[in-house]
């Protein structure tokens, strides 16, 4: 088994005004090439913290983070991130937003036409070619998230990291973006780590669901293998007994074992 990402005994402590805050402790996780892993847990448990560690946006205070056999020392284009709030640059058109990433990754090797073609292909993949010349504030939230995904995929990253990519969207938009993401993942065979708080989304999209205990000092509670054949179809899954089992296991973990104390 070749793990592309290894998280070994990782701990993360923040220095805050109220003293030291231990967010993560003793986190161990291995992510295989081509695997889709989702992180689920109650809000504030440290999912984003873990994802940012893999991204290299922050560095762990203890333990080791390894990607592709090398210690993660910072962010890099081989680990693309889809941010929760899309983070498109508002002064660039959708095309330019994606092109900025393409240019950075492939600009040294490829000509202008090739870069443009790559950008257009990425927009096409999320069905957003029609909005290429629009500014981000002219399109809907779901469309912005699509552009964010196109930007990440256009970089042809080894690993795609997504922090609640559909968290701010309504249920219908979310479902259609999930379907789109399934298609894109199928096509690219990407390794994906995704934070979510949606149980159905976790089961629908992932090969493994990593369930995190409540913070402070959160760690990985259980890991669930989702043994459903791919590509998955949400309508058929609704009647699948294994889907129901997975769902029940996650719900049980979240609402029985890790019941959140009322704040």
């Amino acid at each position, binding site marked *: 088994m070749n793990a592309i990402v290894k998280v070994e005994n990782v701990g993360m402590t923040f220095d805050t005004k109220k003293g030291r805050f231990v967010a993560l402790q003793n986190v161990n996780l291995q992510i295989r090439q081509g695997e889709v892993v989702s992180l689920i847990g109650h809000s504030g448990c440290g999912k984003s913290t873990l994802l940012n560690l893999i991204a290299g946006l922050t560095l762990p205070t203890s333990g080791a983070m390894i990607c592709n056999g090398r210690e993660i020392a*910072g962010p890099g284009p081989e680990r693309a991130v889809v941010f929760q709030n899309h983070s498109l640059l508002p002064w660039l058109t959708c095309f330019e937003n994606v092109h900025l990433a393409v240019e950075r990754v492939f600009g040294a090797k490829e000509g202008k036409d090739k870069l443009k073609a790559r950008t257009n292909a990425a927009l096409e993949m999320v069905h957003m070619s029609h909005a290429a010349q629009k500014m981000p504030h002219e399109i809907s939230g779901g469309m912005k998230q699509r552009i964010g995904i196109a930007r990440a995929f256009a970089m042809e990253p080894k690993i795609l990291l997504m922090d609640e990519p559909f968290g701010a969207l309504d249920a219908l938009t979310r479902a259609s973006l999930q379907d789109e993401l399934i298609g894109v993942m199928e096509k690219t065979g990407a390794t994906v780590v995704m934070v979510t708080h949606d149980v159905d989304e976790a089961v629908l999209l992932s090969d493994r669901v990593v369930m995190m205990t409540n913070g402070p000092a959160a760690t990985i509670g259980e890991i669930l293998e989702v043994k459903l054949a791919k590509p998955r179809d949400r309508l058929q899954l609704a009647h699948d007994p294994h889907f129901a089992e997975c769902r029940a296991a996650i719900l049980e973990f979240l609402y029985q074992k890790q019941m959140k104390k009322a704040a």
Partner: protein
Amino acid sequence: MSTATLTSGLVTVGPDTEAAPETRDGVTVAKQEAPMAAATVSRAAAAEAAEPSASFGERCSAFLRVVLPPLLGFAFIIGLWAMVAMKSTDFPGPAKTLDAAITLFSDPFYQNGPNDQGIGWNILSSLKRVAVGFGVAALVGIPMGFIIGRFAFMNSMLEPIISILRPVSPLAWLPIGLMVFKAADPASTWTIFICSIWPMILNTAQGVQRVPQDYLNVARVLNLSEFKIITKILFPSVLPYMLTGIRLSIGTAWLVIVAAEMLTGGVGIGFWVWDEWNNLKVEHIIIAIFVIGIVGLVLEQFLLLIARRFSYGNN
């Protein structure tokens, strides 16, 4: 700033005369759109365009709702002025001032020696001083703002100095300008430089400090070069703050130039006011007040227009 208070002052005179609640709406909309009494016509046009299917009667009343309150305000002020003028022997009334304005503006660009030039030349030389002082302040202040915003050390080093110097009236710097430059003209430009530089530094620095972390994270994930970070992320996100600084600077600069020119003499609208006072031509002073107000308003609106061009929706 001063124009906004003026307009709302004028507007409060209006609503009493018309009681319908829609009227109020009309007034609020008008107030928000542009605090600009001179633009009543274009505002009315905008109101009309907003309801293309409205009947003629409705459109008339919408027009009146927008135009009437400012007109009433002006009528009120002019009436008050006429009354005061009637009671006083040396204060000219609106009619006499209008007469004088017509003569004055029929030949704004005459030149009879250095101390007797048309009002057009006076306005232009004031604007030129503002432009130069302000331009140099931008060249110095904006990079300084970037440095202060980017490096905490520079911020802690320069902040106390700026805090002490900023509240000082720029006119206090005039003697130093006179001493250094040994001439009136660069000295008043120097005061403009001093008063323009603070808002420019502080707003730019604030803009740099407030570049959203998300955008910086994007830059880090993409591993953008320092050049790309500056051109694609820092500069565009600081630009709105910079433009606010520029607008505040120009506003103060225009306030200060009048006072500075009164002290230094030469050609300029401030000097002209002082000269007309010595000639006891009070109607010219009143005209100058209007002219200074309108030029200030035009400058501000122009910069607001630019700022709107560079505000990228509400993200």
